[in-house]
């Protein structure tokens, strides 16, 4: 009863209904269908040799009129939902303010899968009707590198300029955030069954302890898993060398071959840990909020050697029909009052200053949660490697996780 918008019962019921259907769920499952669709899309035009980079335009998006429609591509369950009407209150507020109807499409289940789907369109300068997409920073880096996204006019978005959290304001691939604006961030944490392991975890190295053999899972997101392992070995992922990354991947590969690591997951891990198929895992902070609410037996911890933070980020693809309106949307969600509504629902780390103060008033429990407002001094990002190195790393990691 502590949460005005959702009672404990509603939360549990929702958790049951959504079992595993949190943010990155369909990741793996969706790939099956997506593979065939994206394969078709790819094949449809791959006779032409158009697959490849475009030239990035240095011109910013020109100011214009606010459009009556905006197409927003995002991940499932990654924005506030009114449980009764099933509508998105923040998007309705946007419509009230600007008169723009937002077509909100939850079509992104996996960074790579989405890339496979849009690569051909974006390469030809068409956004496929999309005005905004949300992808994890490393994929945003690729999008920018390939010239698939537009340069933003920061003068059109004062909220973003004023309210962006320092920790996410200047990633190495886009130091001034001229091609990308963060949507939500999240921590990569140790999540574990207190009842099964008889205590708490403090270090990622404990996941390699033989007493947890076959009960450990790690994430299919390469940067989250490899970054966490690097940290455990005392290497900062932002300045890691290729060799150090490869050593960490070898360590993971060996643990996988030995059966120490049971499997690598998207957020199916929520199901595994609740059922007891896994006892000690790497997981995401937004899910930790839900898991600890679902079960008293689940605990979480920031690894003491430091933790990885990932940021999912908005971009405006080339050829977006309503680019100026899309900038207004980016700016709109950087109003702390609006962002607080999203945070209260998705439970990830907001990239907007001032949200904590708003939430502390409306929902003190969430406002004080270290999962949503973590101490960021120990947070780390994964270095952006060159494309060739990236391929080498991806390839080795994929091999480590079985393919």
């Amino acid at each position, binding site marked *: 009863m502590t949460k005005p918008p959702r009672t404990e019962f509603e939360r549990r019921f929702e958790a049951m209904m959504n079992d595993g259907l949190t943010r990155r769920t369909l990741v*793996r*499952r969706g*790939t*099956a269908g*997506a*593979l065939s669709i*994206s*394969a078709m899309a*790819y*094949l449809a035009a*791959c*006779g032409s*040799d158009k*697959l*490849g*980079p475009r030239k990035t335009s240095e011109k910013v998006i020109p100011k214009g009129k606010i459009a009556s429609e905006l197409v927003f591509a995002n991940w499932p369950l990654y924005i506030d939902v009114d449980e009764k009407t099933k509508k998105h209150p923040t998007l309705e507020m946007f419509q009230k303010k600007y008169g723009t109807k937002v077509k909100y499409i939850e079509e992104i289940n*996996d960074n*790579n*899968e989405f*890339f*496979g789907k849009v*690569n051909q369109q974006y390469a030809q300068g068409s956004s496929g009707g999309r005005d905004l997409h949300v992808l994890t920073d490393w994929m945003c880096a*690729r999008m920018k*590198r*390939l010239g698939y996204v537009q340069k933003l006019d920061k003068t059109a978005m004062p909220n973003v300029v004023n309210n962006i959290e320092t920790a996410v304001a200047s990633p190495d691939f886009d130091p001034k955030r001229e091609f990308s604006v963060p949507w939500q961030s999240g921590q990569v944490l140790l999540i574990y069954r207190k009842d099964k392991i008889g205590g708490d975890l403090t270090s990622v190295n404990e996941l390699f302890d033989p007493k947890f053999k*076959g009960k450990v899972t790690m994430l299919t997101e390469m940067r989250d898993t490899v970054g966490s392992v690097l940290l455990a070995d005392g290497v900062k992922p932002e300045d890691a060398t290729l060799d150090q990354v490869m050593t960490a991947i070898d360590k993971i590969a060996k643990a*996988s*071959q030995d*059966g120490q*690591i*049971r*499997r*690598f997951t998207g957020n199916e891990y929520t*199901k595994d840990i609740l*059922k*007891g*198929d896994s006892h000690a895992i790497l997981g995401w902070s937004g899910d930790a909020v839900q898991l600890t609410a679902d079960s008293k037996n689940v605990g979480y911890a920031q690894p003491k050697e430091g933790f990885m933070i990932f940021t999912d980020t908005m971009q405006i693809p080339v050829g977006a029909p309503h680019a100026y309106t899309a900038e207004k949307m980016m700016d709109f969600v950087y109003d702390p009052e609006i962002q607080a509504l999203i945070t209260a629902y998705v439970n990830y780390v907001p990239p907007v200053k001032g949200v904590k103060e708003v939430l502390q008033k409306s929902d003190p429990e969430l406002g004080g949660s270290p999962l949503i407002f973590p101490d960021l001094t120990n947070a780390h990002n994964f270095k952006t490697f060159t*494309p*060739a190195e990236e*391929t080498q790393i*991806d*390839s080795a990691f*994929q091999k*480590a*996780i*079985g*393919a």
Partner: protein
Amino acid sequence: MAFLLRRRHAAAPYLLLAPGIGWLVLFFAVPLYYMAQISLKEGSIDTGYRFTWHFQTYVDAISNYSDQFLRSFEYAGLATVLSLVIAYPLAYVIAFRGGRWRNALLLLVILPFFTTYLVRTLSWETILDDDGWIVHVLQSVGLLGHHGRLLATGTAVVTGITYNFLPFMILPLYASLERIDKRLHEAAYDLYGRRRDVFLRVTLPLSAPGIVAGVLLTFIPAAGDFVNAQLLGTPRQSMIGNVIQSRYLEVTDYPTAAALSFILMAIILVLVLAYAKIAGTEELTGAEGVAA
């Protein structure tokens, strides 16, 4: 006039074939051509891909992923044999003892198809849980060690594949068993055939086309499957389908993904041709000769 009619007559088969051929060209031959082209390209998404007749991709693909190829055929083979063993008695009972329940029983066979493949596979995840009753029962009778498990093992993957492709075995078997003229059985018994002889010398040969069709329908898709290994296995159970998926989507290594697909296709083709040679081609197409 008669001449025109005759001509129209001659064109009719081709017109009837047109939709099928059109479909095959558009969705099979054309993609196949592009796939072949991609598999011989070199490059990356950052540099673009250039066509260079790069056959080395095939060599590398085979040497890097021979484990997964072998595992795929091992799992698909095991699942096919298991399916046959499970499906034959079932199809036999439905065809000869089903009586008025026949259609209802067939419906039960098809019923799982009413939910999606993924949901069916995910439910096996729940059935084989480490803390589930099946594991507990097997542990208490000593078939599984105290720390033994079913989920995330090869057994789970083969079980999943068998379950998912079982109807593809049952239906052709049923179709061929159901066609058997009951009077042949009566005649066999009249000639003092024992049950075993009637089965081995009448029923089994007459159902051979069903066995051949069922084996092909099960084995071919099972060899390329990646969902079961993904959901019920660990990295140590990954099959060639998982590799193709990961090369294509995760690493964006399109040439290797395309080359692997071709190699898989080629191996399956060789296996199927060898099988057809042994089983007899007439049985692939319906075995009218045997019944007559």
